[in-house]
């Protein structure tokens, strides 16, 4: 970082000119010919447009292909409404569970030292790299009729699979890492000094958590909840395995998209899909805003 120190020293005009020349020469060393630049930018833009933007546009185009009224009536269908309700319920359950767990887990991981920490972090990350279908399968093996707890559940007349608890469990499994993953790096960076100060000034553990830790990580918490929620509402593979596809009862929005699509009810399928696409877009916008807050928070801590 010697350059920055040199820059802050005041320069005579001739020196400044020489410096500008040197800077231009440096830029030349670090960039490509104009034609190469244009080709690279064009390739990037075309690729993203074809593979990412177009599919997004198609969803809305198909949903509105029979007019706005058909779109609205598809959304007002009782089956659609019950799917929306179920999706909201399941998302609320799994986001709530993972919020509490994410806070506790990242608190334990960042504020204390204990053996097996790396293993714990790997376990938390695991659902990210497991196929969603396998995430569903493990719950079928546990709670299905031939599963380990299947007999006991039947004896006690508890329905987990093909019902809301199973869907919520599978969704919780799949969205498990989001909150913890958002908080661990943030809390690691902040260290334990402020908590130690609070404790030594006589605050209780809970007071320290709510008055010191939580305000410091609030944007991180929101960020984790946002991503967790997006995934929870959109999860397909895992939920599809455990839901049993009972119409009007255990169909979440993504599952209803599949069913309607396979029945060639394209407008209805894409109408539901457009709601989920809007959720994705809103999530992305909110994520960008939150990232700005998080960056500012970090800058604030650096100074």
């Amino acid at each position, binding site marked *: 970082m010697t350059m920055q120190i040199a820059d802050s020293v005041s320069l005579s005009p001739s020196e400044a000119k020489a410096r500008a020349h040197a800077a231009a020469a440096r830029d030349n060393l670090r960039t490509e010919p104009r034609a190469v630049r244009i080709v690279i930018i064009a390739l990037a833009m075309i690729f993203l447009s074809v593979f*990412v933007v177009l599919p997004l546009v198609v969803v809305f185009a198909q949903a509105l292909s029979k007019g706005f009224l058909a779109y609205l009536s598809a959304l007002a269908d009782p089956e659609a409404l019950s799917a929306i309700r179920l999706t909201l319920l399941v998302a609320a359950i799994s986001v709530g569970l993972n919020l509490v767990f994410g806070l506790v887990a990242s608190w*334990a991981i960042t504020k204390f030292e204990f053996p097996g920490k790396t293993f714990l972090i790997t376990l*938390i990350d695991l659902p990210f790299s497991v196929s969603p279908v*396998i995430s569903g399968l493990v719950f079928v093996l546990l709670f299905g009729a031939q599963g380990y707890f299947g007999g006991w559940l039947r004896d006690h007349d508890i329905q987990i699979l093909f019902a809301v608890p199973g869907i919520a469990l599978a969704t919780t499994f799949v969205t498990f890492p989001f909150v913890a993953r958002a908080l661990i790096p943030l809390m690691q960076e902040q260290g334990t000094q402020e908590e130690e100060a609070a404790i030594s000034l006589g605050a209780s553990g809970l007071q320290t958590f709510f008055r010191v830790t939580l305000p410091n990580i609030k944007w991180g918490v929101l960020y984790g909840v946002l991503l967790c929620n997006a995934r929870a509402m*959109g999860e397909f593979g895992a939920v599809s395995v455990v839901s049993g596809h009972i119409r009007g009862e255990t169909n979440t*929005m*993504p599952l209803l998209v599949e069913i309607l699509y396979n029945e060639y009810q394209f407008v209805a399928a894409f109408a539901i899909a457009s709601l989920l696409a809007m959720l994705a877009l809103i999530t992305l916008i909110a994520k960008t805003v939150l990232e700005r807050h998080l960056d500012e928070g970090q800058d604030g801590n650096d100074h």
Partner: protein
Amino acid sequence: MGLTLSWLSVIILIPLAGLFLKSLELSPEQFWNILSSRRTLNALRVSFGLAFAAACVNLVMGSIIVWALVRYRFPGRRLFDAIVDVPFALPTAVAGVALTALFAEKGWLGAPLAALGIKVAFTPLGIFVAMIFIGIPFVVRTVQPVLQDLDVEIEEAAGSLGASRWQTIIRVILPSLAPALLTGLALAFARAVGEYGSVIFIAGNLPNVSEIAPLLIVIRLSEFRYADATAIAVVMLVVSFVIIFAVNRLQRWAQSRIPVR
């Protein structure tokens, strides 16, 4: 602490242990017979082969996108930067029906491609397209921060010592990015192998041709052939363990190579 561990056990450890226990109920011979059946082998081949091909495409295109986003200024740069995350955020089922509509024979892209004699939807090529779609953010988001933090003085040094731009990129920049590139490749591959929602709509799902392994698990489950489903799942799970392990090692390697500034 205790709460973390017990919650983790309930949600993650017990279900996964259940899967492995179930697979232990199979004799090695049964296990082998399931895996070596023609349909299973073909499904695994389709999933792993196409996922690897798609990850390679993502590696190349992802690098180009990262380069454009980090090094150049052009109108819409921030928008395109945000767009990269769409495959992360868009529910897989929505991506699946959208890609199918786009590449179907009457779709916006499917029609011109069909005129050229290229059929995408309901063929293995469709699976490939869907896997490229879901994998692209992994490469971009892994490589982008590393390229941003790359010390430009090294490039200047290489250039002023007489290296051509191409030499600088190949000999200086590429090796610094190598761990991030490999990590991105591994993550995109892992995601594509396990992907279900965005693939099944466009795949056509013809056994032995365009049937992916996760779909075969679902089919076996619906036929109540739990043993078959479990065996395929165990193979895929072991592969994802290996990938996570490799990625962790790669990260450690990267940290030991690039001095912290």
